[in-house]
């Protein structure tokens, strides 16, 4: 029988046992950072906790968060929990503050992350006979190198193509029969367009089966578009350098959310304002703790990425929790009439309504007034105002249910609002308080 899981023992581990494993690993990590990292020791002291206070997973919420700012304390070596000589590789992540975040990997760390990648690729259906064209940037970013090691570990043939030079990308695909490719969504869309323009036939001239997309947020529509253009399966891949790069979260063939490998990461979702865990299924900020990392363990790292847990068991059988594709940044949150609102909540409602396009804008003005501008769908307009009024009422009511605030909805013409993907500036705050 064909093997279905890369590591069935771990991937199918009952949740109760998975939690037991997590607690053991957490206790070890907490002890280690307390003993080896002065900055953590001080943070623990300020929070009034000691490693021995961690008796159950419940207790972990009393431990301090690590923020991006913490990574710049005693920079660049301050968070190392082992002597520098144990580190074998440096990766950095562009910081908005100027200095890049520096993340150190021991040899063990490199291979633990590679194992997660191998497991993820296997989950997507890739096997050792597959050929992976790795079209991410090789260098300081984790994206390409971490994927590279993982794919090699699985036994795939890796073509370290790097990004750009589309002609050569396509030539490589044709010559070597690339079956899997790893790239950013925007570049994938571009390459797919060029392949179409060249009238290359998917399945014949181009043998791609799977596309792994990461590093940038993108919509479900973009995924579907690429899947249709290239006749491939597109998998979401989530990671961040602070947590070791790609392989933190990965989609299984169900393509309904990303599994986070909970034997390697402890996952929490919190309200970014209060730091308290959100209610089940609610959107909040993803907080991650490395469970296996040796050189530079990080606990309760505030990723600033917004998502929610998908708690239902996955049809693939894996017990590891799923999260929704990251839905935006916690920094985008705004407060209206005392209620915390994420643009994504608005987007979710709007995407589920027939008759509107996907573009929207939120304007806050006057005395805590919230206006949601929505573009109508050209084909929805039948000439009658009644239909528009009904649509407006439907949007208002569904938004009120979702965010507990009744917004003023304005319908605008298609193409009227600024188009922006990813880190879009959707919220315009004109309030003067």
């Amino acid at each position, binding site marked *: 029988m064909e093997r279905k899981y890369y590591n069935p023992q771990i991937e199918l581990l009952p949740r109760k046992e998975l939690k037991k494993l997590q607690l053991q690993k957490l206790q070890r990590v907490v002890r280690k950072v307390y003993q080896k990292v002065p900055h953590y020791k001080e943070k623990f002291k300020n929070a009034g906790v000691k490693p021995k206070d961690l008796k159950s997973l419940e207790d972990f919420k009393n431990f301090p968060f690590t923020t991006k700012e913490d990574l710049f304390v005693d920079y660049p070596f301050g968070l190392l929990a082992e002597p520098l000589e144990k580190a074998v590789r440096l990766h950095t992540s562009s910081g908005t503050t100027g200095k890049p975040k520096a993340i150190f990997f021991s040899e063990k760390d490199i291979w633990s992350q590679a194992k997660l990648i191998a497991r993820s690729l296997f989950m997507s259906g890739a096997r050792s006979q597959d050929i992976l064209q790795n079209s991410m940037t090789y260098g300081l970013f984790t994206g390409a190198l971490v994927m590279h090691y993982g794919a090699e570990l699985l036994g795939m043939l890796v073509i370290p193509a790097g990004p750009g030079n589309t002609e050569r990308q396509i030539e490589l695909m044709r010559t070597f029969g690339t079956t899997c490719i790893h790239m950013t969504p925007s570049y994938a869309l571009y390459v797919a367009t060029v392949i179409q323009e060249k009238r290359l036939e998917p399945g014949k001239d181009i043998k791609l089966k799977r596309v792994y997309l990461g590093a940038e947020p993108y919509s479900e529509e973009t995924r579907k578009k690429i899947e249709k253009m290239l006749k491939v399966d597109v998998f979401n891949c989530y990671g961040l350098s602070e947590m070791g790069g790609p392989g933190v979260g990965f989609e299984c063939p169900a393509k309904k959310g990303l599994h986070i490998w909970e034997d390697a990461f402890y996952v929490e979702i919190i309200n970014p304002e209060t730091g308290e865990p959100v209610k089940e299924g609610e959107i909040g900020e993803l907080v991650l703790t490395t469970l296996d990392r040796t050189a530079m363990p990080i606990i309760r790292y505030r990723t600033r990425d917004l998502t929610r847990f998908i708690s239902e068991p996955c049809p693939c059988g894996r017990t590891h929790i799923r999260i929704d594709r990251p839905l935006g940044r916690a920094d985008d949150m705004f407060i209206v009439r005392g209620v915390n609102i994420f643009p994504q909540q608005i987007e979710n409602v709007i995407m589920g309504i027939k008759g509107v396009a996907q573009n929207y804008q939120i304007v806050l003005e006057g005395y805590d007034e919230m206006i949601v501008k929505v573009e109508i769908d050209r084909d929805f307009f039948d000439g009658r105002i009644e239909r528009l009024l009904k649509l407006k009422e439907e949007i208002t009511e569904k938004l009120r249910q979702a965010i507990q605030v009744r917004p003023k909805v*304005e319908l605008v013409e298609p*193409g009227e609002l600024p188009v922006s993907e990813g880190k879009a500036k959707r919220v315009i705050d004109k309030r003067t308080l």
Partner: protein
Amino acid sequence: MDYVEIISIFAENKPGKLEKITEVLAKENINILGFSIISVKDFGVIKFLVDMPEKAYQKFKEKGFTVAKIPAIGIELEDRPGGLYEVVKLISSKGVNIESALVYVAETRKKAYFVFEVDELEKAWELLKNEKVKFLKSSNFVNE
């Protein structure tokens, strides 16, 4: 079935919008025979009865407007007190609900039509077609 087509355009309520819309018709030499504007605060719908409905529809579409065609029934009005009352009374006596309407003055002080939209056009037509009134036909005014 005697019905005519009305051009309906979705428009946000902001200065210059009506100007841009009528400019399209003016530039294409399309004559406005009747119009109505319904506005609900932030947006509105502007409707025209024109002599070249198909051309008007295509031009608005090309220029990126959100436009639709709506069928409507037109009944001739007598130019005397109570003229509109009688037409409306007739329509309501048949249980037909008028959703929106405009007036087309075909000849000043002589001939005008009450042009109205209904929820179910065919049903309304069945109820009204045998009445002794003059219905407006596209061929009366369409020039394309």
